[in-house]
């Protein structure tokens, strides 16, 4: 009996790296563009297909479908942002693997030291962690997890996941 789990490599998302204080970011971007800022560390808020993820001190990721990239870029105006705010388009930097199935958590645990139990990693949790030795962003998806790694490691991760799913 092998695992009840499968993975797929997703197309890239629109992704913007936001750094600065919450107030400076809101002031620059305008509250209407963003979901509410997640109050807690390593959790996300979603609104209107846009997800805002609090992944580090004064550090958020804004993610949406890739066809929203230009819109968001226009709204965020990364190049004109004031000194106190850093906004960088990083859509290409990560590649995402969707791992689903009843054994998804086990398969993830082969590469990831994070406690993925719902008590420790609830539905709205999102966090940078380690996946097969590399930095990775982990979060829930329907029936499993999405794990994003630095794009250049994508082929290696695919290799790893194939091995893990045997």
């Amino acid at each position, binding site marked *: 009996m092998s695992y009840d789990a499968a993975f797929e490599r997703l197309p890239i998302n629109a992704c913007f790296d936001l750094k600065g204080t919450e107030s400076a970011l809101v002031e620059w971007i305008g509250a209407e563009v963003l979901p509410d800022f997640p109050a807690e560390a390593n959790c996300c808020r979603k609104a209107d297909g846009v997800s805002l993820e609090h992944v580090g001190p004064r550090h958020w990721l804004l993610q949406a479908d890739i066809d929203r990239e230009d819109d968001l870029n226009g709204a965020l105006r990364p190049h004109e942002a004031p*000194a*106190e705010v850093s906004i*960088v388009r990083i859509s*290409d930097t990560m590649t995402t693997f969707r791992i689903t199935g009843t054994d998804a958590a086990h398969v993830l645990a082969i590469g990831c030291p994070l406690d993925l139990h719902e008590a420790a990693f609830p539905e709205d949790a999102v966090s940078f962690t380690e996946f*097969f030795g590399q930095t990775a962003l982990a979060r829930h998806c329907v029936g499993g997890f999405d794990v994003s790694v630095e794009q250049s490691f994508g*082929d*290696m991760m695919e290799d790893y996941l194939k091995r893990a799913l045997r």
Partner: protein
Amino acid sequence: MQNRRLPSGGGIDRGRPLAFRFNGKEYTGLSGDTLASALLANNVRLTARSFKYHRPRGIVGSGPEEPATLVELEGRRASANQAATTVRLADGMSARSVNCWPSPGLDMGAVNQLFAGLIPAGFYYKTFKWPSWHLYEPMIRKAAGLAGAPEAPPLDGHFEAVHAHADVLVVGAGPAGLMAALVAGRAGCRVFLADERAEAGGSLLDRRLEIAGKPALDWVADSVAELKSMPNVTHLLQDASVWAYREHNCLMVNERSPANSNVLERNWRVRAGQVILATGAFERGLVFPENDRPGVMLASAAQAYVNRFAVMPGERAVFFANNDSAYGVVADFRASGIEVAAIVDSRDVVPDFARKLAGDVPIRAGSVVIGVRGKRAVRGVTVAERGGHGTEKIYCDLLLHSGGWNPTVHLFSQSRGNLRYDESLATFVPDEAAQACVSVGGAAGKLSLASALRTGAEAAAKATGTEMPNLPAVVEESYSIAPLWQVDARGAKGKAFLDIQNDVTVDDVHLALLEGYDNVEHVKRYTTGGMGFDQGKTGNINIIGAIALQKGVPLQDVGTTTFRPPYTPVSFGAIGGIREENVVLPYRHTPVTRWNLDRGAFMYEAGARWRRPGYFPRDGETFQETVNRECRAVREGVGVYDGSPLGKFELKGRDVGRFLDHIYTNLMSTLKAGQCRYGLMLTEDGLILDDGVAMRLGEHRWLVSTSTAHADTVHGHMEELLQTQFPEWNVYVTPVTSQWNNATVCGPKARELMAALGTDIDLSPKGLPFMSFADGHVAGLPARVVRVSFTGELSFELNVAPRHMRDLWERIMEAGEPFGIEPVGSEASHVLRVEKGFLSLGHEVDGTVDAHDLGMSWIMSKKKRDYVGKRSVELRRRGNAIRRELVGLLPVDPNDQIPEGAPLTPGGERCPTEGLVTACVWSVVLDRWVALALLENGLSRHSETVHARLKNATIAADVMEPVFHDPEGLRMRS
């Protein structure tokens, strides 16, 4: 013919016979057997030979403590040493005894017994010296080593290593462990339970006890069923040994029969809030002459064979004990109708309850076994009073002994918990814990069933903050022992073994002490006691006892040796998990990697785990021809390389300029938007950390590029400074290495190629001068074009998002075809940079040189008061160490290639070096070999002749400036 199988009872499945081979002979066992129980069922008594003397041995124990019978599995399950007692019998299994040839019955190594008198402990330190150890070593090596080495990796299946988390990790599913798991599970905790046996129950499997008025195994089954029904009991593993207790409550569990049948073995790294060690206790043997003969067995092991496996380990048994536990075994023997000839108890007084269990079996109190008759199988024992009087010979084919119980403290001790000697139990028990763990049941010296259940429940109740539950009713047992560390009665002659596997006897320990090896660690090392495959699970404490007795000190003062992981041997495959073959080290690809492979590039590792093309060979070309072709393309036409792996960071904030001034040796803050500048970073102790290019994107936005290999190091360096030294500075760092790929086109025809690609950027020398950049489109793709050069030629670094990279690359190759474009690999890049004398950290920088040595004094800002490494470089240069400085070398014979790394010595003599060749390449512009070197005082030695010293030759070379091509840099600025 399983002629020793009892007609009823046992946990075996009589309906499922299993055929197996042992030492070439066919046998049949039953499902549920171990190899050991199946052998005993078939009346196979002589199963092994010992390590040093090759004495005949049988089965001694029933679990991982087995010291005597190691087997090697053959065929599909091939595996080196395994204790026969831990091998689950499987149909078609084939096993053979280790360390004997051709068989345990006829073992040629047995000649060693003739020389036994000459080979006491440590004999090899005293002899085998003349004329040389090399004469003896091969023979000794051949004789050692137990099983054969594995010949091939497993053919089917793979190993897995995986993380897990638990509130409570319970080790052991005996009565204490199950009770603890039940209490923790009912409290809603996440429970991880691991047990080394095939089924839950622990010692209950081997005994005939009752819990709550029913057979104990019913309670076990009910408990397991309840645990299975609780979703918060996440793992209930059988055949899974907890083998290491690491720091911060992280434990390793080796699961040998995972549910996923593709997985051969699994290693769990469990992080637990609380650990409950319910690891039970091992019975230890008694130390008396000939205590290693086949048929001498631990009493508890015999109990397991009778009760669990319905096997009669002999037809007529004598028991030898110093404690009460053996009497329960006697009772079970009687119940199974196996004859017990006598009980020899070294104590003068035997408790009444024990006498009741013995029934009509004669008890010789105050007596000891002073000899065993029979070499290849027990034929009888000689018994005497403790002092040696009143000898009696008793006929038997089985001698079952019990010297007391040792709590299995391995994991507790690994966790750095202290042990203390308990007089009443005559053994070491856990004392103060060092991590969040608690020992319960036998592991804590609580040997009775009632105390096992109680301590298990208590520990779990305390860990979970819940009430102590009502415990099921059991009969209270009592236990007493009078230690007997060795039989030293008059008339007791013959080898008395402490470590059966490594053939360590009482005499060996005495010899070690006599010679001054008097620490327990010395004794262990001098005699090799406890260093076998079993790591002394049954024997170690007897060695401590022997030392204590001989030195006349309490056992507490002797102390134990260190308990080192693993608790039981674990295969390396499980430890490694799926990280094997290609993924053993990470690898990184760019969107062009596939293209490179299709093009037949020779790929290799090139820093920070990137796989990069070394060169693009064509049929019929030599390596040098390939590299020359790529170099010529760049020097004469146009080449392109994939520069994507360079590290890139976007820096944002008011203080970026000031920050860059601090981390680079040169001034960066004066850079204007749209410009870039080459920079050098140092460590605080003045060594070169990295070189790269900084670009100013806007007023407060910068892009810093680093060498491929040091991207992560520089990232950490920047963040550390910003977060710990300058937390008030306004600088944000965002890694964008993989947001920007780049294809760099270089060569005199690069501008023509750019025109052919089509761009909306003014690429004229004035429109986009050297060391500047512009954003726009190239070949219709959004791109940033940067004018930097690592080859010395006119270069355009075309930066695009990875989603466009492959597209861009293919258009470049297409548009470049008329210009004879070549993709350029790392080898050609190396040649091109050497011709220009550009720095390569991997070649010229080896931990001693600074920028001045490299002829780059210009990059060490004199204007800045401070930057990282400034003070240290100044300090170092004020010392009187002779500097090795970068020079160019032209071999006097232009066809002489100097190996990279070759030392330079004065006159090429055999004497200390004065430098070394850091790089040597065939220059396509000069049509000769050229080299770079670090040479003592090299900057002032231009036009001297120096000598590279090879093994049997020297190569003379003329010293010059380290630049062989376009010294003015006109081409790259063109």
